[in-house]
């Protein structure tokens, strides 16, 4: 997953830039105890509550990960496993009703010595359940609003959560367990959640590190949590230095002002690190992937055969090679809208449905079979009138999305479709999508929630269903998946859902977004983590390389 580069040969440098298209399990190497690391971050915390609507952003989740206990961890290979440093076990003990039992380790305590117990789980559930706290500004409420009771044993170390109805992605719940005793000092549920935990720098930690000091917009200093109950952390101090632009972060790294940079990989950043010596570079995919989603209603896009022809004419492999393939070696295109390459559950669903194959002849044959005609290179509808220009909505601040729109424009021209590009900035991008002002939408989806990630787009009436799409088959599959607790069956149903969406010509998956970790080669064990929680997931393993 990573490689050290100290040679002065550019050829060697290029070869040594280890970039993997699929997530792989990274093995930590021995490190020495002590030392400090300064890692750059583009944003300081917008607030201190990582599960609040304002605080639930990538950089904040990453910075605050070392401060909280987490039931499950996502490995560098995207596999979700029990966090045995915190829990003895976490499993579904009953399916009707669904009951999940978490057993907390006896040693697990907050940094002030207060045991981590059921009360912390109960508080974390309540503030994300609108039935218990309607005023709480939680980022995510799904699953928490299905909890009917939380029971415990005498020690408080057993957390028995009963659900009103099954919630399949239960492992996504409680990513940050909040300290109930600290919250209680701030007042009631809403006050503690919206104000107390949001406005105050955390003084108590349940993770390997705790906040020593914070200077707004400049630096957050973390030191070891003396009451940490898990595997010993190695670095004495970790400092998050706020530098807004990745290019400036890399220059600062080059000048030795910081030790590590982590963020999205772009052609510019990869070229910049290619010029550097004495750094280790790791590039890897995340669980978030680019895709086109097509409108499924209206005068033109409501025609299923046209959508199918469009999805067939678009060439996923070509787009991958011309974008991320320029700077990430061996990039593998998506073959599914539900799993990224490398995940065990992945199936070749695009191959099975003919989506994204760049099959121009096949697309034209499909159209001609439905009465469309190509006249002087322009597609006419079954009524003989030219098909109107299609609009591709893309995001102007993301150069890759703009490039994808341009490539789609060129590829669609081959089947007689003229596409115009609307490159909207941040203020207009989502409102335009919500208003349905597009035919093809260039966007990205995070798959951390599994099939729930697809449901938010494609279920009838879903919050992000900007497409006017509705399918009884898809709705039924989503409903089945949401109550299926067997993982193999979930994978089978999810792949079936994926194929149904692809066959309907509603989505064209492209490739995973890649992240890059660049750090001084005196350090080790800083990995690209594919989850939305980022690189700090194994923060206690970070350290200075042990002397040979």
């Amino acid at each position, binding site marked *: 997953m990573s490689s050290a580069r100290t040679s002065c040969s550019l050829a060697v440098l290029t070869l040594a830039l280890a970039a993997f298209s699929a997530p792989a399990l990274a093995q930590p190497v021995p490190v020495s105890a002590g030392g400090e690391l300064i890692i750059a971050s583009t944003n300081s915390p917008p607030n201190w509550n990582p599960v609040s609507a304002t605080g639930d952003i990538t950089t904040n989740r990453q910075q605050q990960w070392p401060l909280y206990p987490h039931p499950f961890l996502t490995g560098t290979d995207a596999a979700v496993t029990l966090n045995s440093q915190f829990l003895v076990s976490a499993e579904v003990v009953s399916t009707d009703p669904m009951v999940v039992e978490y057993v907390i380790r006896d040693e697990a305590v907050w940094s002030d010595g207060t045991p981590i117990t059921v009360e912390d789980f109960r508080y974390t559930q309540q503030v994300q359940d609108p039935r218990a706290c309607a005023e709480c500004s939680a980022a995510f409420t*799904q699953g928490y609003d299905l909890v009917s009771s939380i029971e415990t044993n005498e020690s408080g170390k057993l957390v028995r959560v009963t659900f009103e109805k099954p919630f399949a992605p239960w492992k996504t719940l409680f990513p940050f367990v909040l300290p109930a005793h600290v919250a209680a000092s701030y007042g009631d549920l809403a006050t503690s959640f919206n104000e107390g935990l949001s406005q105050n720098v955390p003084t108590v930690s349940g993770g390997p590190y705790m906040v020593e000091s914070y200077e707004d917009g400049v630096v957050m200093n973390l030191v070891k949590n003396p009451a940490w109950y898990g595997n010993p952390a190695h670095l004495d101090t970790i400092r998050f230095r706020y530098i807004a632009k990745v290019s400036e972060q890399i*220059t*600062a790294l*080059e000048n030795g002002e910081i030790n590590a940079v982590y963020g999205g990989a772009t052609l510019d950043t990869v070229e910049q690190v290619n010029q550097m010596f004495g750094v280790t570079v790791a590039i890897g995919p995340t669980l978030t992937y680019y895709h086109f989603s097509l409108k499924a209603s209206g005068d033109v896009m409501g025609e299923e055969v046209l959508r199918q022809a469009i999805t067939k004419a678009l060439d996923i492999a070509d787009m991958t090679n011309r974008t991320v393939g320029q700077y990430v070696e061996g990039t593998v295109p998506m073959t599914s809208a539900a799993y990224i390459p490398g995940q065990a559950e992945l199936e070749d669903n695009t191959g099975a449905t003919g989506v994204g194959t760049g099959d121009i002849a096949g697309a034209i044959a499909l159209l001609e079979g439905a009465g469309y005609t190509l006249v002087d290179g322009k597609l006419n509808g079954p009524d003989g009138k030219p098909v109107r220009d299609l609009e591709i909505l893309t995001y102007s601040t993301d150069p890759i999305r703009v490039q994808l729109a341009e490539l789609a424009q060129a590829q669609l021209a081959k089947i007689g479709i003229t596409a115009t590009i609307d490159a909207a900035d941040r203020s*207009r*991008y989502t409102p335009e999508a919500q208003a349905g002002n597009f035919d093809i939408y260039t966007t990205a989806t995070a798959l951390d929630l599994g099939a729930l*990630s697809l449901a938010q787009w494609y279920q009838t009436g879903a919050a992000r269903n900007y497409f006017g799409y509705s399918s009884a088959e898809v709705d039924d599959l989503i409903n089945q998946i949401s109550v299926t607790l067997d993982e193999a069956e979930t994978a089978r149903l999810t792949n079936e859902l994926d194929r149904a969406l692809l066959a309907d010509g509603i989505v064209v998956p492209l490739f995973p977004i890649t992240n890059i970790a660049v750090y001084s080669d005196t350090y080790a064990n800083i990995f690209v983590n594919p989850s939305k929680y980022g690189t700090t997931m194994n923060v206690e393993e970070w350290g200075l390389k042990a002397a040979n």
Partner: protein
Amino acid sequence: MLALIGRRLVNSLAILLVSTFVVFTLVALAGDPLGELRDRQPPVPDSVIAAEEARLGLDQPIPVRYLTWLSGVVRGDFGPSVKPNQNIGAELAPRVGVTLRLVTTAIVIATILALIAGTIAALYRNRIADHLISTSAFILIALPSFWLAVLLKQGGIVVNRMANARILFTVGDISVPAPKEFLPLMLDMAGHLILPTIALTMIHFASWSRYQRTAVVESLSSDHVRFAVLRGLSRNRIVGAHVMRPALIPIVTVVALDLPALLSGAVITETVFQWRGMGGFLLESIANRDANAVMAWLLVAAVAVVMFNLLADIVYAFVDPRVRYGQA
């Protein structure tokens, strides 16, 4: 003089009022400050979005929002920020100090350099010194400030490598963690100040030196200088007392009028060098569509411009006796 200052202040207030309304309206119309929140995956609950709209007053018409903002400003409250934990006034105050440190240093150095270079170029007109100074000035004027700043950073890294020590810094106004002892702390702050100051100074020095050169050339050909020569005064006295002093008036005007450009130049410099000054605040506020924060920046910048223009008027009175006599 007091009446002049009073009239200027009244005019400035009127301009401020109109400009704040125009800018407020433009920022409010520029986009949805909750766009990022609405685009979250998985979606943020509707109740949370509604609560944010109410907190920011987005459910009110723009004129009402402007009046609310204006009445708040009169009471010293800049209004809520898109960033819920951000108190705009408390956030901006230290940033003003950071930017003033950078801009003031740049103004002083650029002015001194411009006076020296412009005067030398004029005194040695069409000779090697003039050609060298003029060519350098034109090159610096042609350089985009962003590019110059990036080049300086790379140059700083090369210097550090050659010295095998970190003398020059590329981000921030102080190291993290900052040195605890006084002397290392001062050296550290100086090391952070050098590159951004050079970037900001060079571009303005170049244009100001051209103004100074022209002013000195004109002054050299004026009657009172010829008369001084005929009186047999020494060269140094002629240049110091009869050439330089009247030539200061144009440069004072240019420096005062260039302040907005200097502040906008500081936005770029602060961005490249990641100084936590007003520039970064403005860019972040614009990116967030944070109308109240943009307005706070505008107010501070406008006050700075008004103050510098007033200062220029006062300096005129010192360097040009005609202004004092006219007032008398």
